[in-house]
């Protein structure tokens, strides 16, 4: 089962926008959800979501942090 980087977004209040708060590596989305919730537990989040990083398409710059084609799965998240 291949490891994948999942990007983590969360908001503290319903009216807040989702913020990119970090990433986790996991073998499936269910594990990614647990890892995200347990790793970024510094707030009582109203909502948290995760998404595979390779589902993001860079729009304006190819060298942007989300350009996964340039990075290995083990690269630290720098966004």
């Amino acid at each position, binding site marked *: *089962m291949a*490891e994948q980087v999942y990007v983590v977004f969360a908001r503290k209040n319903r009216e807040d926008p989702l913020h990119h708060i970090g990433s*986790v*590596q*996991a*073998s*499936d989305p*269910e*594990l990614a*959800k*647990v*890892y995200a*919730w*347990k*790793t970024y*537990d510094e707030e009582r989040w109203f909502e948290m979501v995760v998404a595979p990083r390779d589902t993001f398409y860079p729009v304006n710059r190819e060298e942007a942090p989300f350009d996964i084609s340039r990075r290995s799965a083990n690269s630290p998240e720098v966004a």
Partner: protein
Amino acid sequence: MTDGIRSAADLPEESRQALHDTILSLADSKRIIGILYADWVLGAPELEANIATSSISQDEWGHSRLLYALLKDFGEEPEKLEHAREPSEYCSIEALDQRLATWPEFVATNAIVDTALTVQLEALANSCYTPLRQRVQKQLEEERFHEAHGAAWLRRLGSSSDAARAAAQEAVNARWSHVLHWFGPDDFGTGEKEAGLTDGNGGELRARFIDRMTPVIEGAGLEVPSTRLDFSDWESASRRSQRTGPDPEAVARARGDRNRAFFVETAEPEK
């Protein structure tokens, strides 16, 4: 639901001790499972799993403190329960008597034993004993993530190498029978169910647990073990067949023996 029963003193006489025993078994099981999990805080296969393991271990420790504190309402001294009992006095589920020697043993404990405790907690979520009902909800919210972690790792081991799958199956097999017996004979707790303290007796909770775990185990490519239930040595107060208790070193850590010199004593008990 009405306001419910706010004090253990107001519980029906015949149900009070039984509910006390259920809460103590849950508290002891959560205390011991927290200690066993803690052995893997730095030993999990990946960084995120280390963090999750640490958090899950602390959750369980917190749950046990909440439950021990609740037993004060039943005339117990929580400090004695937490710090002054021998292993043979623990009422923890027998599946937790051995240390977790391997990661597959951790995973099987997380997936199966932890879920059994959750099934028991869920049965108390609408209890007419209000102080218990109020403590259960937060625990169940946290347990959702424990269960997901156990299930996901069981899937991962099941879809890994033959050796990993075999180790996972062996770890499941070693815990399954203990867990099924922990729920007790089919009619165990029927009186408490009729009194509105719980919503399921032993047979019903066991069936819920099996229904919950079967797709998880089979979904991981493993087999649900077959078990012949035998309650001839089973004792209802401790929900155990053997009173030897958990691993003595785990109990020593649970009691905080090494930190005993730093405890702030409230009062010396009368000799």
